[in-house]
């Protein structure tokens, strides 16, 4: 049936931002194609979410299941494959989140449907779907189409689609789902919050952020000196945490924190999308990197193409002088 189906995800009493973002995109596509937008939300108590989703979707399927852990991929896959086989939506939209990565590929196999992930644009011309993906670490975009088929599954990149307000009053259908299959083989044991040391980078006005270009743990001192001069604290990108140079609480980006400082000063960071998505809200972004083609320059207000080991010591010195 000509409709677009959006899978919503939620965690700890809150709908995920990405779900609202792809819902808005779904609404846009559905209106353009003149077809309906269906949202599905699965969990132990989903009534609150259903009301919220109904502001975008023409119809919300609120599926109640009684397994621990709201987003366990296995039960969701079973439920979604049966709904999709039944409704045969033209396009299934899921967020390219940790939940999406765990779910979408196994759903595609179950439905023998084509899957395009982490898309930065989705379009439908009469019922052929075209998507755009960012590949080679953001250096090249690729446009894909699909062989003619009933169902296409697409996951959308977090933070790529703007979530517009909408106050539609969609219809809500409650579905009770009893899982016959025993899930003993995979037991959810709860969430773990990253232990927060003394530092909360989300509160700082000034963040001096370091990336792989820092080359070694010893050089963090250089960034700390600059941070002290600016009254800020040191943050970092993922490779710095992976190499054990700074604890995870300093990490900005998708799997770390989202920050909105007055100044985000990026040193030796190439700017993978998973990092830039966490800093886009900064008032001023300054980038120092010796690779002029580093993707992060495309989100910067000011940039210096030079070696951080030459510029940063001089910058710290200059700031101390100017502060007098």
């Amino acid at each position: 049936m000509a409709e677009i189906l959006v899978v919503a995800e939620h965690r700890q009493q809150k709908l995920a931002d990405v779900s609202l973002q792809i819902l808005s995109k779904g609404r846009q596509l559905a209106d353009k194609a003149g077809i309906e937008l269906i949202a599905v939300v699965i969990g132990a108590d989903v009534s609150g979410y259903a009301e919220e989703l109904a502001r975008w979707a023409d119809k919300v399927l609120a599926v109640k299941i009684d397994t621990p852990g709201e987003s366990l991929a296995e039960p969701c896959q079973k439920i979604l494959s049966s709904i999709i086989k039944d409704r045969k939506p033209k396009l299934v939209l899921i967020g390219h989140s940790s939940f999406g990565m765990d779910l979408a590929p196994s759903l595609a196999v179950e439905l023998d449907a084509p899957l395009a992930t982490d898309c930065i644009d989705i379009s439908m011309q009469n019922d052929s779907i075209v998507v755009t993906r960012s590949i080679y670490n953001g250096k090249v975009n690729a446009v894909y189409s699909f062989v003619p088929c009933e169902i296409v599954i697409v996951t959308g990149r977090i933070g790529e689609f703007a979530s517009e307000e909408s106050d539609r009053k969609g219809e809500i259908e409650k579905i009770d789902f009893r899982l016959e299959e025993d899930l003993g083989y995979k037991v959810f044991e709860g969430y773990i919050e990253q232990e927060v040391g003394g530092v909360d980078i989300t509160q700082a006005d000034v963040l001096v952020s370091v990336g792989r270009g820092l080359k070694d743990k010893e050089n963090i001192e250089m960034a700390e000196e600059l941070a002290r001069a600016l009254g800020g604290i040191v943050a970092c990108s993922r490779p710095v945490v992976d190499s054990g140079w700074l604890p995870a609480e300093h990490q900005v980006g998708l799997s770390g924190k989202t920050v909105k400082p007055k100044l985000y000063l990026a040193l030796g960071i190439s700017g993978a999308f998973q990092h830039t998505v966490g800093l886009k809200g900064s008032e001023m972004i300054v980038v120092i990197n010796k690779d002029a083609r580093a993707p992060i320059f495309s989100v910067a207000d000011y940039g210096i193409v030079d070696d951080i080991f030459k510029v940063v010591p001089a910058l710290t010195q200059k700031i101390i002088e100017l502060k007098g």
Partner: protein
Amino acid sequence: MDIVVCIKRIPDTADVVGIDASKKDIEKDSLAFKINDWDDYALEAAVQLKEKQGGSITAVTVGPKEWDDILRRALAMGADKAIRVDQDMVTADCYAVAKVLDALIRDLSYNLVLFGAQSEDFGCSQLGVMVAEMLGIPHAALAVSLQVADGRIHVSRELEAGMLESYTIELPALLTIQTGINRPRYISLGGIKRAMSKELQVMSLSDLGLSLDTLAPMVRLEKLELPPRGKEAELISGSPEETADQLARILQNSGIF
């Protein structure tokens, strides 16, 4: 503890400069190739498990002859055996590659299958979970820590905003590994030479009862294009002293200090 690790060979994205005339591929002449970063972490995780619990590691890939170098590297790191399905499927979609790997792994004896969470070139992060579905074994994507104990594996998985979620999964199972789970060791050229004696088996699609026409991609590449220029950053130029001086004044004028 028998582990299968699937690895991929990719161009060093730092060198990627442009798109070739066909608009369907990048310029490949001056590129250097290496093992996909995520797969290096998956291999290291497998070797550390083997060092603790014993057992065997088989490294597998699907690709042409030049891909033997990443298998040799895996053997030097600690894999006992390597298998390459001799078929260039770089332009195929993940679904097709998953079918090949499913057919290959199905006949191997394994308790655990490890994939990298995604690849540096296309970054689909689909392959591992697809293969798990085809093999009919439980999976968890984006694993950042794992311990094995009496037939089960305790995994914690990375979510957004610094959150993790943890599971206990019965073996056999499939995990896709996120970077940062460990610190992959350096593989010396001497190590690679010493591992030359280890077995590297090459198979064809037909050995797996497959043929190219059953593997036609359902997702088709239309074209490649350069991303639109983002916000035009104001570049400050000059010697390190000059740029530092200008930047310091800009920051002062905008009230940062």
